[in-house]
């Protein structure tokens, strides 16, 4: 359940940072009356996200078995795309977030529309909540036999860690480097996404819809058994299987290097040509 913990930790931290920024802003602006709107919006978003999770579960149960399997494969692919987008393209977003949120919050305060504050909190928390639901559905689809209890425990642990991390951040704890946190979890989540991609393809192979190309490329069960502790951890983190098909291996290899490269580029963006800085003159 390590991937559940990781996903919930990171998603909840993003939501907690947004709520924290709004609360800090209102406290500094002396607008304590707006605080309960922020909490109200956040709580409503959390409840709607939980409702969506429950509702999607009962919709799934209505489908016939093969359709269910195809929908699960679809969820895995959508989760891969959203996870990738979140990790790679949203990378620089944390830095610009505070200014943007404060601008919108101060506009809401200035016009006396406290409901606007609730909306900002709602939208921010709801987005993270829906992403969490989607990724956790991906985890369920990947492993099939996920029992509810360990997942709830891992989810609560992830949520608790997120709140603790956010509190350290807002207390100005100097050792906490959120950039490093987002980079490390980003790399781990890209590996999780690669595993989700492979297992989505594995489902389509099992349904007879696509060919494995080669059914078994290698067999590493002598080294790491699928049902060993290490095998389970690797299965959760990178979708490890001891006897993968060529299609799954190709998908993994086609996905990971370009995405790690894209993440690196997002971290160190090259300055666009002609950005107005004076050209250093040759000595």
């Amino acid at each position, binding site marked *: 359940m390590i991937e559940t913990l990781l996903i919930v930790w990171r998603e909840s931290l993003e939501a907690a940072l947004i709520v924290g920024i709004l609360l800090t802003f209102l406290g500094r602006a002396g607008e304590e009356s707006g605080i309960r709107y922020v909490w109200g919006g956040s709580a409503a978003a959390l409840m709607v996200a939980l409702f969506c999770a429950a509702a999607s579960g009962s919709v799934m149960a209505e489908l016939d078995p093969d359709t269910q399997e195809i929908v699960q494969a679809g969820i895995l692919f959508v989760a891969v795309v959203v996870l990738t987008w979140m990790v790679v393209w949203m990378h620089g977003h944390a830095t610009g977030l505070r200014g943007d949120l404060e601008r919108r919050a101060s506009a809401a305060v200035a016009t006396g529309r406290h409901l606007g504050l609730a909306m900002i909190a709602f939208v921010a928390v709801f987005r993270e909540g829906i992403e969490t639901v989607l990724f956790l559905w991906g985890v369920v689809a990947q492993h*099939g036999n996920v029992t509810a209890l360990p997942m709830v425990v891992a989810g609560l642990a992830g949520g608790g860690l997120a709140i603790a991390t956010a509190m350290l951040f807002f207390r100005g704890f100097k050792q906490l480097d959120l950039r490093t946190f987002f980079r490390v979890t980003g790399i781990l989540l890209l590996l999780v996404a690669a595993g989700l991609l492979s297992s989505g393809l594995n489902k389509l192979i099992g349904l007879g819809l696509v060919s494995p190309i080669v*059914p078994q490329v290698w067999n590493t*069960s002598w080294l790491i058994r699928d049902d060993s502790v290490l095998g389970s951890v690797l299965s959760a983190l990178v979708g490890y299987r001891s006897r993968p098909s060529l299609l799954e291996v190709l*998908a993994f290899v*086609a996905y990971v290097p370009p995405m790690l490269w*894209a993440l690196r580029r997002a971290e160190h963006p090259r300055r666009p040509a002609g950005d107005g800085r004076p050209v250093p003159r040759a000595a």
Partner: protein
Amino acid sequence: MLRIVLLAPLLLAATAAAPAFAIAEDHTIALAVTDAGFDPAEIQAPAGSRVRIEITNKSSAAIEFESFELNRERVIQSGQTVSVYVTGLDAGSYAFFDDFHQERKGTLVVR
């Protein structure tokens, strides 16, 4: 670069999908799961063919047909029948089990 990144999976999907439809006949095996276990506990298939294992869950609870050796897992609700495909296997025996009731075991023998 971004375009290549996005196109790669599509090309991969196209190459993978093509041969799946080219093979005309499947070797179908019926396999039932009862509260006592897999029935029959040993199934057979010819090497190299595309095999469709048609699994009916006649037991009272959901099962998960799982095999590390076949690289397959599939949850089957009570009363449902699903098909699980395995393709191009080498000769040998491949163990499978019910992940929800691990005392239920079976073998696919490929000759």
